[in-house]
């Protein structure tokens, strides 16, 4: 059995049954990270000793019945999310020794469910847009996306079964798509943000990156204490957002059209979903809110440490200080209008279907474009990407699905149906990692 390729649900099942110990699993993953992360750079910090101690404790605690759902399953935590006694550096040098005394709410819930913190995954600075050191596991000359760069790369590279990310624009869905993983941004505030360094209070979300829809449901259930399993028998009714396809590269648009055809051939209804406003209104509104809020969030810290800021973020914050109150209020009013309209549209279908991003993973000088993810961070509707094969360039394809706020489980059920129809996901083979197993 290749332990590193187990999904979270498979690992939990094997550990519960006693066929695999958490200690064995953690040992294998640590060896894999040691072999591959010199090139991949997905981890800011690996907490080997504590993870091994937690794994031994999980193995000792395993009982015949009533084991917590993620007993002994390791996970990564994006380095803007607090883990007790590990630094939350946010890739910001003055924060390198910032030691939180308590877990963030989401880490607390996952530990309660038996999961084990393996370490902190690389984030772009303060979860913004400056390129990270992390590389795409499919092609080292491409970005893994951002800002949850390390989380997406580590999951796709089989270094860990799942990882936590955050999304303010497109920071969970886009990197998961670029790396060929499943990325889930839940409804706004479905997962508590306590203990997460803020970028934009009205837009920040905590999300999950894993290797199957079943895993996302399992982890979401643990993070919200509302266990569920996605089950759907009937083919879904999908609303195709062709307005989004028009703003995507031809190769991406054609791939999503082809996936739509494949879903239709399997029985899904795929019909045009028409917006009443131009896509750019949503991205512009998102831009104004996020930039104004980020400028305020960072006002004091930027004044204290201007030269410690990465160049893209520093300029973004400085310009954001000039956004006026009237424009910010207008953006909040338009945000409410867009939320109402998108909710009404999404409610006409089981889910909306669109490309996960406007391009495949670009070169490593950027983290990609958030235009096709940001409208759902703006409106709080749950959104996710699932992989759908590889392009001729050897980069992952994927589709994005969007559901109704508060109906995350229904979205996961649609995604599970689509996952069963689309090409089975594959995972990159990195130099060194197979030899370690």
């Amino acid at each position, binding site marked *: 059995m290749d332990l590193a390729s187990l999904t979270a649900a498979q690992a939990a099942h094997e550990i519960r049954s006693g066929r695999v110990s958490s200690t064995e699993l953690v040992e294998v993953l640590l060896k894999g990270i040691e072999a591959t992360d010199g090139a991949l750079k997905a981890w800011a910090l690996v907490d080997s000793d504590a993870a091994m101690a937690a794994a031994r404790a999980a193995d000792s605690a395993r009982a015949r019945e009533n084991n917590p759902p993620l007993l002994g399953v390791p996970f990564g935590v994006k380095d803007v999310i607090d883990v007790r006694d590990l630094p939350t550096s946010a890739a910001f040098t003055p924060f390198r020794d910032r030691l939180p005394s308590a877990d963030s709410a989401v880490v607390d819930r996952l530990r309660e469910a038996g999961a084990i913190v393996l370490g902190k995954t690389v984030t772009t600075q303060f979860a913004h847009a400056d390129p990270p050191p992390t590389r795409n596991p499919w092609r080292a000359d491409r970005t893994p996306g951002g800002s949850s760069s390390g989380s997406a790369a580590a999951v796709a590279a089989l270094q860990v079964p799942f990882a936590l990310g955050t999304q303010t624009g497109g920071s969970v869905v886009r990197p998961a798509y670029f790396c060929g993983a499943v990325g889930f941004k839940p409804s706004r505030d479905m997962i508590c943000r306590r203990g997460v360094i803020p970028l934009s209070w009205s837009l920040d979300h905590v999300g999950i990156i894993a290797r199957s829809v079943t895993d996302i449901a399992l982890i979401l259930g643990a993070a919200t204490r509302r266990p569920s399993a996605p089950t759907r028998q009937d083919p879904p009714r999908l609303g195709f957002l062709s307005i989004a396809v028009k703003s995507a590269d031809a190769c991406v648009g054609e791939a999503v059209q082809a996936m739509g055809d494949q879903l239709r051939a399997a029985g899904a209804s795929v019909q045009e979903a028409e917006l009443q406003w131009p896509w750019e209104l949503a991205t*512009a509104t998102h831009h104004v809110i996020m930039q104004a809020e980020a400028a305020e969030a960072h006002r004091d810290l930027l004044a204290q440490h201007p030269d410690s800021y990465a160049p893209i973020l520093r300029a973004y914050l*400085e*310009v954001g200080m*000039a956004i006026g109150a009237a*424009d910010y209020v207008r953006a909040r009013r338009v945000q409410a209008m867009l939320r109402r309209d998108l909710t009404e549209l999404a409610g006409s279908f089981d889910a909306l279907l669109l490309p996960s991003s406007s391009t495949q993973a670009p070169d490593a000088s950027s983290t990609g474009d958030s235009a096709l993810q940001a409208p759902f961070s703006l409106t709080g509707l749950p959104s996710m990407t699932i992989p759908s094969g590889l392009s001729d360039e050897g980069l992952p394809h994927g589709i994005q699905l969007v559901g109704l706020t508060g109906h995350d489980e229904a979205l996961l059920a649609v995604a599970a149906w689509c996952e069963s129809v689309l090409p089975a996901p594959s995972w990159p083979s990195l130099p060194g990692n197979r030899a370690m197993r």
Partner: protein
Amino acid sequence: MSDSGIFDAWIEFHLPSGRKDDPQTKRWLEITARALEVLRAHPQPIDGVAPLGDEAWISRH
């Protein structure tokens, strides 16, 4: 003063000296100015309160 003039004036006021020629600053100034333009060009949302000066809205309600 036009809307874009107000943004320019705020930029003059807020930007630390020597930062206006930074390439990233120039890029964000362009992107933000475009976002504000799109936002301001959209009619004020009707959210239960008549937009000031919109007599047609008042007569419709």
